């Protein structure tokens, strides 16, 4: 078994075809007529340009518009006067076109490779791909054609160049394995777009295989088997068939509204921890983002992120969602995290200590105000809602809202745009907040129930402590009563109530939540379609009886067993 990076989900079983690019030999040669050599380079450049346009057209057909844009990037580089003038300058000084291309492209590729950002480093691959295509056109060498590979082929290469990927026929290629690359390399992006299972960065893979070997590519787990025995092959064949069946079934729910059989509309949205997670949200048709954690902006660095930096991040997320709502949670951090520049003292009991809104209200000038100001400014670019974490009493909400109003006035004075009707809500995750939910519901625009912390605080149970793990169950009647109460208070006050903990995607919990009157289910993006399917096949009215029965039990175990049976009865 070989391990690599899971670049594109799914399982592919097929025969290996190793794709190797011809090794180009670039030699320095004397140039007698530099003008003729420049002309020769220009012909090759034109040809490369045309090839690139043709690849773009093929990608448009086989994958889609977004992926074809990669080729626009290539054309931009080919058109770049910095590149062409430099090459022509070298030719003018007596260097042959192949060598001039080599030197200049390598210079730019090295420049990209040295940048401390994976996105830039991937551009180095682009420049090298362009270099090879230019040189092949100069030398009159044909590129490898992968479009004619037979059905059931697993493509194996050192690295897939974008031009190779452009030739792939997704009907024939059942899997991709490469020795190089990463999750955000073009080949990975294209593999995902074409829905071909792919494992990348499998070191030394090509040493041990040959054309025609049978391989199993598990792009979900990032593992590859070569000439596996019958038992493993049978297991993976079954896994593959199940994966494809489930996927097909779930895909029917893309673009469908999340509505119960009796016409109750809810929202199924995603939890994200960084802007890059949005790709998945859109892929799985999330109706928005129910929880965007902002901690990533503050971690692993030496200084506080500036308002400007936060503004750019929030704006980017709001814009990518193109009008879909995004609930952004203000900083939820405390003494359990090591953030030296914040100067937080070690808390004896960090989860009950100086954290989240408690910390932010105490550090308005350097932490909370810049964050709220960045959020308000970014609200001009999309449907941003602000969520306050770990609220326990009304004073905290009022103080935070007063600060928001103060910032709004400052923005008005400076004529800076923001959404004047921005919604401000709270995480409901403490026992105090559930008991006072009726009061909070009159002062905030929405609730989002954080079940992980709500369970921990309601059960007085450290969720990281294995010895008391038996206490940590959201199915505990105490926790369920808290959730039911919060939903009821929100429904009565006419405000939205969502849930952004693990429980929102739990098939045993969804029926109860629907019956309680939850409006919004927020979960990891990959769980969205499964949850939507369950919601679309439920009737809120019929679920009342299920919920009543579940709530009549007195222990977590009884509720869990009852719900397990109920979910089983649906299949």
């Amino acid at each position, binding site marked *: 078994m070989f391990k690599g990076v899971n670049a594109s989900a799914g399982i592919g079983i097929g025969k290996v075809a190793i794709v190797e690019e011809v090794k180009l030999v670039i030699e320095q040669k004397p140039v007698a007529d530099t003008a003729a050599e420049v002309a020769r380079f220009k012909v090759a450049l034109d040809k490369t340009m045309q090839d690139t346009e043709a690849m773009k057209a093929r990608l448009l057909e086989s994958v889609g518009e977004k992926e074809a844009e990669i080729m626009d990037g290539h054309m931009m580089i080919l058109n*770049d006067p*910095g590149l062409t003038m430099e090459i022509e300058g070298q030719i003018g000084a007596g260097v042959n076109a192949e060598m001039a291309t080599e030197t200049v492209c390598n210079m730019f590729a090295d420049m990209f490779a040295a940048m401390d950002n994976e996105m830039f480093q991937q551009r180095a691959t682009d420049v090298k791909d362009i270099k090879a295509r230019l040189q092949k056109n100069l030398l009159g060498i044909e590129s490898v054609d992968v479009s004619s590979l037979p059905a059931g082929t697993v493509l194996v290469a050192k690295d897939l160049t974008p031009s190779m990927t452009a030739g792939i026929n997704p009907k024939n290629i059942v899997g991709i394995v490469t020795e190089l690359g990463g999750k955000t390399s073009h080949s990975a992006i294209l593999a995902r777009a074409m829905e071909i299972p792919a494992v990348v960065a499998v070191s030394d893979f090509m040493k041990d295989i040959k054309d025609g070997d049978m391989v199993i590519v598990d792009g979900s787990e990032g593992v590859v088997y070569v000439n596996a025995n019958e038992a493993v092959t049978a297991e993976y064949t079954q896994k593959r068939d199940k994966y494809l069946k489930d996927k097909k079934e779930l895909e029917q729910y893309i673009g469908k509204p999340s509505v119960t059989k009796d016409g109750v509309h809810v929202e199924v949205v995603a939890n994200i921890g960084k802007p890059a997670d949005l790709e998945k949200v859109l892929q799985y048709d999330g109706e928005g983002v129910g929880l965007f954690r902002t901690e990533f902006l503050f971690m692993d660095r030496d200084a506080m992120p500036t308002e400007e930096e936060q503004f750019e991040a929030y704006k980017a997320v709001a814009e990518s969602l193109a009008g879909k709502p995004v609930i952004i949670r203000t900083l939820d951090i405390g003494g359990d995290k090591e953030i030296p520049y914040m100067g937080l003292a070690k808390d004896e009991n960090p989860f009950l200590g100086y954290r989240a809104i408690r910390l932010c209200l105490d550090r308005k000038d350097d932490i909370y105000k810049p964050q709220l100001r960045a959020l308000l400014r970014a609200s001009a670019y999309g449907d941003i809602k602000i969520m306050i974490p770990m609220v326990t009493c009304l004073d905290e909400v009022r103080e935070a809202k007063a600060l928001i109003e103060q910032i709004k006035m400052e923005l008005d004075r400076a004529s800076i745009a923001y959404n004047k009707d921005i919604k401000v809500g709270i995480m409901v995750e403490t026992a105090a907040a559930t008991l006072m939910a009726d009061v909070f519901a009159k002062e905030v625009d929405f609730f989002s129930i954080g079940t992980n912390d709500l369970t921990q605080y309601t059960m007085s149970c450290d969720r990281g402590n294995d010895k008391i793990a038996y206490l940590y169950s959201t199915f505990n009647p105490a926790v369920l009563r808290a959730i039911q109460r919060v939903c009821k208070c929100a429904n009565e006050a006419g405000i939205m109530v969502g849930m952004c903990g693990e429980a929102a995607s739990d098939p045993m919990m969804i029926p109860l939540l629907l019956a309680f009157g939850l409006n919004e289910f927020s979960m990891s993006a990959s769980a969205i379609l499964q949850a939507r399917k369950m919601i679309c096949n439920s009737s809120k009215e019929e679920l009342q009886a299920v919920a009543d029965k579940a709530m009549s039990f007195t222990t977590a175990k009884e509720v869990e067993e009852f719900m397990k049976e109920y979910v089983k009865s649906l299949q």
Partner: protein
Amino acid sequence: MVSAKVIIRDPMGIHLRPAGMLSNEVIRFQSSVTFQTGHSQGNAKSMLSVLGAKIRVGDEVTFFCEGPDERAALIAVMAFVDQDRYECK
């Protein structure tokens, strides 16, 4: 020749997207558009050159335009950089 100096305010400096946008913006002018920072210089019409200059937040960058439409080119550069990411000096 005309010139103008700006300070880069974007915390990420001039990265991929703005570099592409800048070169796209000025390539239509006949005049040459070059720039100079404390540590580098380059051709603003070339995205690769702009990226290669590794312009970071806080850097002072002077743009030079020379040619028949140099004023229009400089105005275009200023319009591009004056998007609150950058501060004209």
